C-alpha cells in the first residue's frame, strides 16, 4: 500500500448525512518543527476556503519528548450554507483520523498503538528514519527495535501508507522534515488542494522558503515513485580480497567450508590491515582445529567455526594505542571527517582528538619485559601516572599533532613483542582450547562459549570490567559442562553481563547457577 501512487482524496461525507471535519494529527518529537507543519496546513486550508483549527499540548513535552499537533478543517461553503460555524474537537479520537503525519517511525508506531490509524480512512505518512529511544541507545549491545515490524504494522493499520526516509530527503535538500512531510501530503492528494496551493502556503510562511520548497518538491516526487529496493547486507560481506591476500583467499576456499567464507574473508583483511599478512595467516592456522572439531561434532552448518572465527578476528585485532593512532592518521579517515563536517572549499577543518591513555594503555605497547616492570613496580608507574593523569587533546591536522600519532602508529612492527600482545594471545589460546574441549562433550555449550568474547568491549575501565565478566563466565564452565541445559544457562549469564555496566546482573545470574 502506498508504494504505487493510487492515492485518493478524502470523502468528507463518508457515512454521515452532514459534512464533517477533515481530521489531521501530526505525531512528532518536541523541537522538530511540527508546529511549522501545522501552521502551513492551517494557512493552506484557510486560503482554500476552509475553516481550520489547530491545537497542541506544549510545555516540557516540547523538550524532545513525544508530542501531538491536532488539526481540523471544514469547508467554509457548508458552513455558509448552514449559516453556522462548525464545532471543532480539540483532540484526536481513536478511529476518527483521516490523516496522520509521523516525523519518525517509532512515533508512527505510537500513533498506531493509540488507535489513530485505521484501515477504513487513515492516510498514514511516516518517515522511515529512526530517532533512537534512550532505551535503544543505552544498551551495552544492540538494543534497536525492529523497523520492519513497525512498517508492516503501518501497512496493515492504514488505508493508505506512505513511508519514505523523509529525513534523508530533508537533509539532501538542506531543508527540514516538516517541508518533506508537507510535500508527501500534497502528493497523496489526501487533501482537496493543489500542489500550487501547498507551495503558496510555504511561501506565505516566509521562513527558509527556498530550501523548504526544494524539500517539498523532492519528497513530492519520492512519494509518487515506487520505493527503491534496499541493498541488503551481503554487500557488507564481499567475497573479494586484494592481491596481497590472494594466497590466503585460495587457502580459505580450499580448506574451509563455504558457510564460514564471508566471515573469514572479512577477517583476513582486517588482520592484514591491523598487523600484516602473516598475522592473518596465523589466524587461519588457529582456526584449523576449530574447523575439525566442528566437522566432527557439528550439524554441518559450521556455526561454531563461523562464530569462533568472528570473535577470534576481533580479539586478535584488539584496539591498542598503536591501532588507534594508525586509524586516526589515515587519509580515508581525514576524507570522511571532512565530508561529515560539510565544510566548503574555502573553509579549513581542524580535527582534535580527545585521548586519555592510562598507565595500562601505555605499558600495553611496550616490550613485555619493560612494560610488565613499569606497570607493577612503584616508582616508574608513578612517573607514567603523572604523565597520564590528564586527558590530552591532539590536533591531528597540525604538523606536530599528526607526527605524534604517526610515530605511535609506526610502532606496529614491534607489536608482537609487546606486553599486551603476549597477554591477549595467552588468553586467546586458553579460550580456543576450551572451545575444542567443550565442543567434544557439549556442542551447544561450545557455541555459546564461542560468543563469550562479545562481553569484552571498549577501553580503559569499560574494557577491564568486560575482561572481568569474561573470566567470570569462563570460571562457570566446569560447573556447567555436564548439566543438560548448560548452553541456555551460559547464554543467560552472558546476556546478564551485557545487561548493566556494574556487573550486578551477572553476579545475580550466577547465584541462580546449579551448585
Amino acid at each position, binding site marked *: 500500500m502506498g508504494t504505487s501512487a493510487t492515492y485518493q482524496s478524502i470523502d468528507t461525507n463518508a457515512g454521515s448525512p452532514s459534512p464533517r471535519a477533515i481530521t489531521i494529527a501530526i505525531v512528532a518529537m518536541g523541537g522538530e518543527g511540527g508546529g511549522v507543519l501545522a501552521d502551513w496546513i492551517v494557512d493552506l486550508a484557510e486560503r482554500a476556503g476552509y475553516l481550520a*483549527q489547530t491545537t497542541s499540548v506544549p510545555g516540557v513535552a516540547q523538550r524532545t519528548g513525544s508530542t501531538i499537533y491536532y488539526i481540523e478543517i471544514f469547508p467554509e461553503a457548508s458552513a455558509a450554507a448552514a449559516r453556522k460555524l462548525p464545532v471543532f474537537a480539540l483532540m484526536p479520537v481513536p478511529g476518527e483520523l483521516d490523516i496522520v503525519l509521523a516525523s519518525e517511525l517509532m512515533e508512527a508506531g505510537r500513533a498506531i498503538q493509540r488507535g489513530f490509524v485505521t484501515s477504513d480512512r487513515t492516510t498514514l505518512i511516516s518517515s522511515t528514519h529512526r530517532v533512537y529511544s534512550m532505551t535503544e541507545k543505552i544498551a551495552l549491545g544492540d538494543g534497536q527495535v525492529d523497523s520492519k515490524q513497525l512498517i508492516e504494522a503501518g501497512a496493515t493499520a492504514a488505508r493508505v501508507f506512505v513511508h519514505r526516509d523523509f529525513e534523508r530527503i530533508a537533509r539532501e535538500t538542506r531543508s527540514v522534515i516538516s517541508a518533506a512531510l508537507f510535500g508527501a501530503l500534497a502528493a497523496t492528494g489526501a487533501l482537496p488542494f493543489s500542489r500550487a496551493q501547498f507551495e503558496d502556503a510555504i511561501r506565505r510562511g516566509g521562513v527558509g522558503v527556498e530550501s523548504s520548497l526544494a524539500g517539498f518538491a523532492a519528497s513530492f516526487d519520492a512519494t509518487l515513485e515506487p520505493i527503491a529496493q534496499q541493498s541488503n547486507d551481503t554487500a557488507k560481506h564481499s567475497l573479494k580480497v586484494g592481491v596481497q591476500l590472494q594466497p590466503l583467499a585460495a587457502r580459505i576456499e580450499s580448506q574451509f567450508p563455504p558457510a564460514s567464507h564471508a566471515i573469514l574473508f572479512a577477517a583476513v583483511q582486517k588482520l592484514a590491515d591491523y598487523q600484516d599478512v602473516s598475522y592473518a595467516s596465523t589466524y587461519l592456522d588457529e582456526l584449523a582445529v576449530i574447523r575439525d572439531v566442528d566437522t566432527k561434532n557439528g550439524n554441518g552448518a559450521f556455526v561454531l567455526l563461523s562464530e569462533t572465527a568472528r570473535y577470534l578476528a576481533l580479539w586478535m585485532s584488539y584496539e591498542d594505542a598503536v591501532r588507534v593512532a594508525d586509524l586516526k592518521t589515515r587519509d580515508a579517515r581525514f576524507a570522511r571527517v571532512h565530508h561529515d563536517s560539510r565544510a566548503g572549499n574555502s573553509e579549513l577543518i581542524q580535527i582534535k582528538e580527545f585521548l586519555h591513555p592510562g598507565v595500562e594503555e601505555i605499558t600495553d605497547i611496550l616490550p613485555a619485559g619493560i612494560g610488565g616492570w613499569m606497570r607493577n613496580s612503584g616508582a616508574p608507574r608513578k612517573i607514567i601516572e603523572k604523565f597520564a593523569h590528564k586527558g590530552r587533546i591532539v590536533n591531528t591536522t597540525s*604538523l606536530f599533532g599528526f607526527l605524534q600519532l604517526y610515530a605511535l602508529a609506526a610502532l606496529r612492527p614491534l607489536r608482537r613483542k609487546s606486553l599486551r600482545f603476549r597477554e591477549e594471545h595467552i588468553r586467546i589460546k586458553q579460550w580456543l582450547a576450551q572451545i575444542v574441549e567443550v565442543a567434544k562433550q557439549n556442542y551447544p555449550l561450545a557455541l555459546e562459549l564461542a560468543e563469550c568474547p562479545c562481553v569484552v568491549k571498549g577501553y580503559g575501565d569499560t574494557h577491564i570490567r568486560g575482561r572481568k565478566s569474561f573470566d567470570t563466565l569462563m570460571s562457570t564452565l566446569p560447573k556447567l559442562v555436564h548439566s543438560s541445559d548448560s548452553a541456555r544457562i551460559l547464554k543467560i549469564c552472558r546476556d546478564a553481563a551485557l545487561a548493566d555496566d556494574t556487573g550486578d546482573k551477572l553476579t545475580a545470574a550466577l547465584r541462580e547457577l546449579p551448585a
Partner: protein
Amino acid sequence: MAERFFTKEVQKLYLGQGQEFRGEGILAVTKALLQSGVSYVAGYQGAPISHLMDVLTDANSILEELGVHFEHSASEATAAATLAASVNYPLRGAITFKSTVGTNVASDALANLASGGVMGGALIIVGEDYGEGSSIMQERSHAFAMKSQMWLLDPRPNLPSIVQAVEQGFALSEASNTPVMLELRIRACHVHGSFVAKDNVRPTFTLKDAIEKPSRDPSRIVLPPGSFLHEHEKIQKRWPAAQKFIQEHALNEWFSDGAQDFGIILQGGMYNTTIRALELLGLSNAFGDTNVPLYVLNVTYPLVDDEIKRFCAGKRGVLVIEEGQPDFIEQNINSILRKADIQTKVHGKGMLPMAGEYTAAAVTRGVFEFVQKYAPEKIDREKLPAVVRPASPSSTQPASNVVSQVHPRPPSFCTGCPERPIFTAMKLVERELGPHHVACDIGCHLFSILPPFNIGATTMGYGLGWASAAALNTKETSKRTISFMGDGGFWHNGLTSGVGNAVFNQSDNVLVVVDNSYTAATGGQDILSSEAINPIRTTQLSIADAVRGVGVKWVRTITRTYDLVAMRDTLKEALTTKEKGPKVIVAQSECSLNKQRRVKPQLLKLQKEGKRIVRERFGVDADTCTGDHSCIRLSGCPSLSIAPNPDPLRKDPVATVLESCVGCGLCGEVAHAARLCPSFFQTEVISNPTEWDNFKARIAGTVIRFLQRRTNRRLAGITA
C-alpha cells in the same frame, strides 16, 4: 528573552471594533483584557499560560500607551497579592499562572483577597495543566474557588466564548465584589481560532489616580471583627449577587432544552468534546445542532440552583460531564435536587471515569452508555464509532503488533544542554563515593530522574529542592545529601525556603543551583540573575552574592558546567570537605535552546561579512568505537546516537554524533573524565580563514599527505 517571540502577533492587539482577530487562544485573552479596560496585569510564567506572559512582555509599549502596568511577579503569591490594588479602588486587574501549582502558591493572598472582597474587577486566569501534556500533579483548581468562595469560569473552548468570559468575568467580579477565576485548559490556551475584536479601552480611573488620592476601608481588612463579617457577607450578599448576575446575563447556556426527557449538564470547557461525542453517535451534526438537551456551565462555581432545578425538572435522568475529581459539581447537583425533592436520576462518575482526562474517547463512551440507558433507539448500531465498537481482532491486531516496538519517549535535556554535564559529573562522583540522597526541584533539571542518569528521589515543588531535604540532617553521619534548585526556583522562593532555612537550621548538606540565565522550563523568561540586558527589567544580579548575603560561607561557582572535571571535583569537595555548614555550588552556563537562538543569527551575519568564524561539532570514529555505548550512558544527548557498525565482523551498532550537534564539548569531556575511549574527536570548521591559517594548513597538509601515501602503500592490495 523568551523562547517564542510574539512581535508579529502583538500587532493584532491594535485591532479595533469589528475587525477579525485570528490567533492563539491565549493571545485572544490578552486582547480581551485590553478591551475590558484592565489597569494592571501580573503573573508568573508556566505552561500553558507562558505565552500570555510572553505576549504581554512583547506588547509592553502598547500596554504603556493604555496606561496598563505589567509585572513579571516574583511568584504566584506576589501576583495574587498584586490584586490588592482592586480592594479599595475601581481598578480592573488580572493575574495569571499555571494551576494548580501556581494557585497553591497564591492561595494565601487569594484567601485574604476573597475574604475582604474587591471593588474593582479582579480576574485570576489559571492555565489548568491537567491531562495529556501536563507536567504536574493532577488536581483541580475548582477546590480553590470553593474554599475561598471565588467564582470559577470555565468557558466553551472557542475564541469568542473565551473573550466574552474575560469581559463578563470583570463585570461579575464587580457585581459581586468577589475575585473571579477563569480556568483555561491546555488545549484551549493553544487553540487557533478567530473572533471579532472591539476597541481597546483606556481605564477612566487610573493607577495614577489611586496613588495620588489614596483611600482605605478598614472593614475590608482581614482582622477581627472584619474577618467574621466577611464570611457572612460572602453568603448573604456576594453569593446571591453572583447568582443573580449569572442568570440575568445568561452566562450559562442552554441547547435544545425540552427536546428529550433526559439531558446533559457539562462544564463549558467540555463542550467541544461533548459535541464531537454526540456527532460520532449520530446525535448531532458538525455545527452542534443536537437533539439532546445540553446545559452548559460556563460558570462552574457557584452553581445556580434555580437553573439546575429548571433543567432537571421533568427529566428522567441527566449526565454530568465534569472532568477531574472529586466530583464537586455532581455532588452539588445531587444535593440541590434532593433538597428540592426532584427525583431526576443523576449520572456522572461511573458512566464516565472517576479519574483522568476526559478525552473525546472517554466522553463518547460515557454518552453512549447514558443514551443507551434512556433512548437506545436513537443510536444506529450499524454506524457506531470505533471507540464504542466491540473490539474485533482485525482492528486491534496492528496495535498489539507494535507494542513491543514502541518505547516511551519522555522529554529530556536538549542537545547542548548545560545541565546534562552536571548530572554526568554526579554519575562520576557516584562511582567514587557511592550513591547519595538527591532531592530534586521543578525545572528541566528534573529530567535527571530519567535514564540515562536515574538521579533524584523527590520533588516537592518549585524552589523547594533544598527544603525537601531538610529532615535528612543529623550529626550521626558524616555523609551529606545533595539538593538541586534551578535559578527560577531560587528567586521564586528557594533563597528563603531553602538557603535561609539551611543556614538557620545549621544544615551540613549540599545545594546545587542550576543557573542557566532563564526560567528555561517555562520558556526561557528572564529573572534577576539573567545575563541578558532587559529594557523593562533589572537583571544580571549574582546568585552567589545572594547566597552569601543570607549567610552561606561555603560557596563555589562553576562558570562553565561543561568543564566536567571541575564540576566533578567541586561536587566531591562539597561532599567530603571537613568544613561544616551549608554548601552551595552555583553551576552556570546558558540554556542551549536560548543560546542557539541568540548566537546562530550573529554567526551567520559575521560569516557573510567575511569575518573568521569557527564552527565546532563532535564526531565518533566508527572504526575505533567498539559499540559499548558507555559514552551514551553518561550523556543521553539527543545528538549522540547509534548507527550501523561498518565492520562486517561486529554485530553491535556504533556510537555516532548527529548533525544536530552544537559542539558543546561534553562528549570530549566525558571521554577524558571517564577515560572512555579515543573515538571522540572535535571538528573545527574555519570559515574565512586568515593567511596564517592557510599557511599552516599548507605546510602541515604537504607532510601529512606524504606520510599518508606511505601508509597507503602498505595497505595496497589488502582489500579488493
